């Protein structure tokens, strides 16, 4: 390690500004991430995001593994919302290999994606409330999410990393009776939503804290490359599921939830609306799965000697954080030649966060970060 030149503090000009480190070891930071803010009094005049604490070099180690081995690796890129990762990887491989996904598998994937969206949003509700000291909401939200993890466990055998969606379909069919249990759970969720509503969205303190916090306009959001719920909170009805549809989403009936505030409150309102929409989509998927039969996976060659044809593909998915992109290049070999992951948070966890923090105050740093739903692992990869 080279010895850097450290200026002696005594030689510096006196200043009214000082630095504060948010993270990586800080409860107000989402995941393992850091934001260094320069403050003047309570007001932030400069913010520098510092990532890489969760860097594992996914893109590199995926080049070192077989196409099937990577299925186990991809969900780990984004921890709170892993299913879109599996879906994007699988679809990019399908686009290169020209694989046809059976209809039943497509519906199952939609079901999984939307359940995962509900989970991720419930988690964000909790996290966002905890940043302003409303821990009760966090306890309730995380526990509610846990019931959904049980469904995942029943379907896939794992709570978090399902490794369920494979190129060409899904790993196995749904177990007996799980559709009924999902329906029962959705009813329970709908019963509990008013409680969250009362506790969070109708709470005077939350409204006071969240209104106007981290506000951005639609023009700014579009120019900064913001996607997903954060963009929709500024009033732009953009959704990959609708604009660049994949799977059976063209057949699914759902609304794009938008708000006009563009602040922390609006972002959480959009997420609340999306949970409602996700419930609607899951119900449609359940109805369809009752009718559609057939295989859940297309025929694949021996996975250990599977050479994908040369080519490249860019798959986009609407994850709970925004637009998720997988760019995969194959050179005709048994391993990917290059995988590039465009993490859904890569914009709003770095550049946008840095911009929004300037002018806000210390107490809002955590709230802005959580309301943007920044997911550091997919930025660091």
């Amino acid at each position, binding site marked *: 390690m080279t010895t850097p030149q450290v200026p002696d503090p005594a030689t510096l000009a006196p200043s009214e500004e000082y630095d504060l480190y948010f993270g990586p070891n800080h*409860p107000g930071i989402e995941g393992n991430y850091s934001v260094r803010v320069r403050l003047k009094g*309570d007001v932030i005049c400069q913010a520098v995001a510092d990532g890489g604490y969760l860097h594992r070099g996914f893109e590199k180690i995926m080049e070192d593994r077989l196409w099937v081995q990577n299925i186990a690796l991809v969900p780990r890129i984004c921890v709170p919302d892993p299913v879109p990762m599996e879906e994007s990887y699988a679809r990019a491989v399908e686009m290169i290999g020209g694989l046809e996904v059976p209809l039943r598998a497509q519906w199952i994937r939609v079901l999984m994606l939307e359940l995962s969206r509900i989970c991720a949003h419930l988690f964000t509700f909790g996290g966002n409330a905890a*940043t302003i*000291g*409303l821990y*009760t909401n966090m*306890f309730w939200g995380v526990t509610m999410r846990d019931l959904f993890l049980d469904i995942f466990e029943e379907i896939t055998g794992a709570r978090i990393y399902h490794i369920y969606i494979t190129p060409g379909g899904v790993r196995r069919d749904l177990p007996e009776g799980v559709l009924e249990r999902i329906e029962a759970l959705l009813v329970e969720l709908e019963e509990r939503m008013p409680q969250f509503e009362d*506790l969070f969205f109708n*709470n005077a303190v939350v409204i006071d804290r969240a209104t106007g916090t981290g506000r951005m306009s639609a023009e700014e959001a579009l120019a900064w490359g913001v996607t997903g719920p954060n963009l929709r909170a500024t009033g732009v009805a953009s959704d990959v599921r609708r604009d660049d549809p994949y799977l059976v989403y063209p057949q699914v009936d759902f609304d794009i939830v938008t708000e006009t505030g563009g602040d922390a409150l609006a972002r959480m309102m959009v997420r609340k609306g999306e949970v409602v929409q996700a419930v609607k989509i899951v119900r449609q998927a359940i109805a369809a799965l009752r009718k559609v039969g057939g295989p859940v996976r297309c025929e694949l060659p021996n996975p250990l000697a599977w050479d994908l044809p040369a080519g490249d593909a860019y798959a986009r998915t609407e994850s709970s954080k925004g637009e998720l992109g997988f760019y995969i290049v194959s050179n005709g070999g048994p391993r990917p030649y290059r995988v590039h992951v465009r993490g859904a948070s890569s914009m709003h966890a770095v550049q946008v966060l840095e911009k929004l923090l300037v002018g806000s105050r210390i107490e809002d740093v955590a709230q802005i970060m959580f309301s943007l739903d920044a997911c550091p692992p997919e930025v660091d990869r």
Partner: protein
Amino acid sequence: MRLLADIVLMPLIAFITGLFLVLMYRRVRAKIERRVGPPFFQPVYDIVKLFAKKTQISHGVMHDLSIVLLLGGYITAEIFLPVPGFKGLAEEGDLLTLIYIMMVPMLGLALGVGSCANPNGSIGISRALTAMLAYDVPLAVAIIGATMTYGTTNLVEIVRIQQEGGMATWGIATMPLLAIGGYLAVHGMFGKEPFEIYIAPAEIATGPMVEMSGKYMGALFIMQCFQLYTIGVLYVTLFLGGGENWPLFLIKVAAVVFISVAVTNVYGRYRTDKVVRWMWKWPTGIALLGLALVMAK
């Protein structure tokens, strides 16, 4: 000799009651969050564990001294409180002395945290002093109103007046507006949401506590016990007729704390400026109205 026994016993009883209050606080919180909560001896375990730490970091003399001020302030305050069966110094001191002594711990903490050189601590303590400034105004108004009603600042006298006349002469009956304003100020004094911005973990990593470890942290835990008890007793003395006997007295103190800890769990925390504005608007306004009524009588 009697005084010596009181000086030892009164803080001890305060500490033990405080442990129960802390336990209640944590249990209530757990129930609202739909979980089981800590075991019965948890507050004791925490404190013993913290004092039994084998390594310890100190940040200088001021840091050590702050703990003395912190605990000393509260232990002194206990002796001035009028509780059933003990005389202590309640007769000699009065309300103003008590309020004055109760400010010492916070100032002591400020001194100690200042020597830690952790910016989170400094921000936290400046917020804490601001919050103190905020809730002291309605509290002062309530206390002025109370002294005017009772015609004395002697705490024993105040308790006697209320107990002789029965429930109708309790402060809460004779000056309800002051009682409400005072209660809101007391809620701020407890340092719970929505007025706990100065320890906000998500913002400044628990502020003043950020550099406290082992025995220092243990002292803060003990301080929390004293704090809940002292503030509860102060309110009971002023507005709820003081203690006729120990069971009734403890029920009253627990009730004061209970309402506060039950309410706190459904709120987030206000920003510092909002805390000041809110405190100077609602509780102060209500208390001033109460004061006007008292003066009109």
